[in-house]
């Protein structure tokens, strides 16, 4: 790693001030950022840890709306959402491995927006709201492509608000080496309609499969997806799977998610 300064503020305001320095960067749980720094793929002048800010560790369940602080770890979400939003808890409990889940945070994952990460699928599939120190961003406006989000420099995710669906499920097909999602599909049924979000598959990062949503609105059952497919053209093709393979998996995992959601 290149050398950097380290700061650990105790309020959001202090963190925002610390991040105003040129080339300062926020540090969530560091489970992606620290390996990235070790490879010298980034050279921040300063890391501003968000782990010492009590406000970012808050969790609340407010009658059908689950609010999770940006610095809440995957393990904490897995435990805290088990009753209120089981599909989200289940997703969180299968990110990385236990030690990674004890450090990695929801805010860190969403700010990074890895195209194969799980949380973007949950946020987009739930129509979540990303709350920052400056504003609120709907998930539909938040994700902007590979590792790209609507966040401005120095903007901090303070919380994520998840409306709790009637039923939901997430199915991921593991890339066997990295254990990230080769394809992951989050399907959620709300009174207002069904949302289907796909991670791991597209060159544009997480996306909603609108055609599947329309079919599932009419009939929330796996067979409703018979004959539907995503265009292989925009899929990721690499040594782990061709574009066509990923496109096929989207349909398979979507059906599994709907079946498991019940």
């Amino acid at each position, binding site marked *: 790693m290149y050398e950097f300064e380290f700061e*650990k503020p105790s309020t959001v305001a202090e963190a925002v001030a610390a991040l105003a320095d040129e080339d300062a960067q926020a540090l969530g749980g560091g489970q992606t950022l620290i390996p990235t720094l070790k490879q010298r793929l980034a050279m921040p002048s300063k890391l501003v840890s968000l782990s010492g800010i009590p406000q970012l560790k808050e969790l609340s369940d407010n009658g059908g709306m689950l609010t999770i602080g940006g610095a809440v770890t995957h393990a904490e979400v897995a435990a805290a959402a088990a009753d209120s939003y089981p599909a989200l808890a289940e997703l969180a409990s299968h990110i990385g491995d236990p030690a990674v889940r004890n450090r990695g945070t929801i805010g860190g994952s969403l700010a990074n927006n890895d195209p194969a990460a799980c949380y973007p699928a949950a946020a987009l599939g739930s129509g979540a709201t990303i709350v920052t120190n400056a504003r609120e961003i709907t998930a539909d406006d938040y994700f902007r492509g590979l590792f790209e989000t609507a966040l401005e420099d120095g903007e901090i995710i303070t919380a994520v608000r998840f409306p709790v669906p009637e039923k939901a499920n997430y199915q991921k097909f593991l890339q066997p080496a990295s254990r990230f999602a080769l394809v992951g599909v989050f399907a959620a049924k709300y009174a207002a309609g069904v949302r289907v979000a796909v991670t791991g598959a597209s060159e544009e990062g997480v996306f909603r499969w609108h055609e599947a949503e329309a079919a599932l609105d009419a009939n929330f059952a796996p067979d409703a997806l018979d004959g539907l497919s995503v265009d292989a053209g925009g899929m990721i093709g690499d040594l782990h799977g061709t574009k066509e393979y990923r496109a096929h998996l989207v349909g398979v995992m979507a059906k599994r998610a709907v079946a498991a959601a019940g």
Partner: protein
Amino acid sequence: MAKVSMTVNGKAASGDVEGRTLLSSFLREQLGLTGTHVGCDTSQCGACVVHVDGKAVKACTMLAQEAEGAEVATIEGQANADGSLNTIQQAFQDHHGLQCGFCTPGMVMSAAALLKDNPKPTEAEIRDYLEGNLCRCTGYHNIVKAIMAASGQDVSSIAAE
């Protein structure tokens, strides 16, 4: 440089570190606790697993200053007060849960974290929990068996006698 202070295996420990100093480096190089192994240094292998405030973490993927004020437990603090092996360590020896031993500190620390939360895990739960701990010698069977045995469960039905 900044001063960092924490409790390691029940004793106060402090030192001067850079922003980029990893917890694994601090433990190994400044405190001389070289039982925490650095295998891959990319958060894959789990040889560096320690407990920070009771939770298993990869010490190679946490900055030393993030552990300021924390209670850290490493493999060096696992033995019984009289120096004899604790239950998990003894089970690893009894069931040949190690060959070269490089991954063992992380395996033991992960096993301890698992058994704290789940005192009677199934074989599947143990294998699932060890997803982030790689062993290149034993093929895992004896490690799983050792953890089953350490939890006081019958291991006669576990593979690889």
